[in-house]
């Protein structure tokens, strides 16, 4: 058996834990295949003498996190809008892909809650979150911009998220941070 194939169970296990699925789930299988595809495509990235399994697991972590993010986005986009019995029939809405008024209202409500929650964060945490999520800077760039150590940036991002997540859960219900709303 090929050395890489010997790592397959460990790769599957890691992907399954990150995706929170069974090992035989098709998404876990897809991510496992993608991991090996990337490894085969760039074998030069494995430094000579370095063991293969940690390298493959590192790739698998990235692949699984990408898949988790894609799945989260898909769930958010496909989440049903709040039901309105007086709304026009589904057939009449099919032609217009724009979000309906109920969804817009829900979005605005969430945005208002988030804006209030952001307003309660310490300036440093808010700034770190905005720079990371909206300006798309990495920790290192944020640290340089704000003149603080990179570990401090990581702490601000982590604490800021935890505080926002808590406030959103309290304001919008338990499904708030899982995209169930």
């Amino acid at each position: 058996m090929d050395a890489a194939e010997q790592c397959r169970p460990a790769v599957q296990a890691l992907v399954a834990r990150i995706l929170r699925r069974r090992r035989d789930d098709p998404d876990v299988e897809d991510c496992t295949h993608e991991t090996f595809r990337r490894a085969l495509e760039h074998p030069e990235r494995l430094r000579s003498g370095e063991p293969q399994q940690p390298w493959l697991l590192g790739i698998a972590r990235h692949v699984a996190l990408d898949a988790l993010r894609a799945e989260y986005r898909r769930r958010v986009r496909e989440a049903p809008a709040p039901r309105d019995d007086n709304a026009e029939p589904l057939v009449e809405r099919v032609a217009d892909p724009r979000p309906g008024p109920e969804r817009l209202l829900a979005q605005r409500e969430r945005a208002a809650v988030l804006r209030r929650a952001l307003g309660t964060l310490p300036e440093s945490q808010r700034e770190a979150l905005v720079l990371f999520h909206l300006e798309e800077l990495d920790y290192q760039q944020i640290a340089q911009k704000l003149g603080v150590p990179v570990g401090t940036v990581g702490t601000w991002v982590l604490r800021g998220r935890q505080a926002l997540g808590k406030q959103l859960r309290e304001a919008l219900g338990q499904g708030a941070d899982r995209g169930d709303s």
Partner: protein
Amino acid sequence: MIHEVLDEESLWTDDGHASELVLSALGDGQDTLVPTRVSEHVDSCARCTERLSEIAMLAFSLDERLLELGAESETEATWPVAGATPAMPSRPFPLRPFALSLLVATVGLMPRLLGEGGVAARLLGLEHGGFSWLRSARLFVPLLLERERAFVMAICLTTTLLACLGGWLLARSAELPKETLT
């Protein structure tokens, strides 16, 4: 460019697992900040990968919402400020220009108001013996109070209620978000 890494004391929890800071950094794709031995532990530890998944999910959900909010704020060109009420952009009433324009208008009207046969004279009934409406009121009000006390009370009560309702609506409108008013 020299990449920093996270401080040694921030890498592990007391029970030998990766810290939340490490998991958050890995979830954000900031692998270069995490020493290889720590990321290798995460990849082979069930508890750490499950926690990584939870932390990453929170980051994804906030990322979506912040992007939503960012798109909305671009159109409104306002960003949240600590301690501020986020509902309406503050536009102070232009009191000075308003007062000045009232003053100019009043000065301009003076000759018309106070001149002989002017509006003020006509309103106050000065042309017909002065303050005739005041004399009528002095006769009419006691008569009304004496004969129709309940009616007068009802008018007073209604006026008070309307004034209170108006005040409440004004106060409420100041609290409503901008989009509710448009």
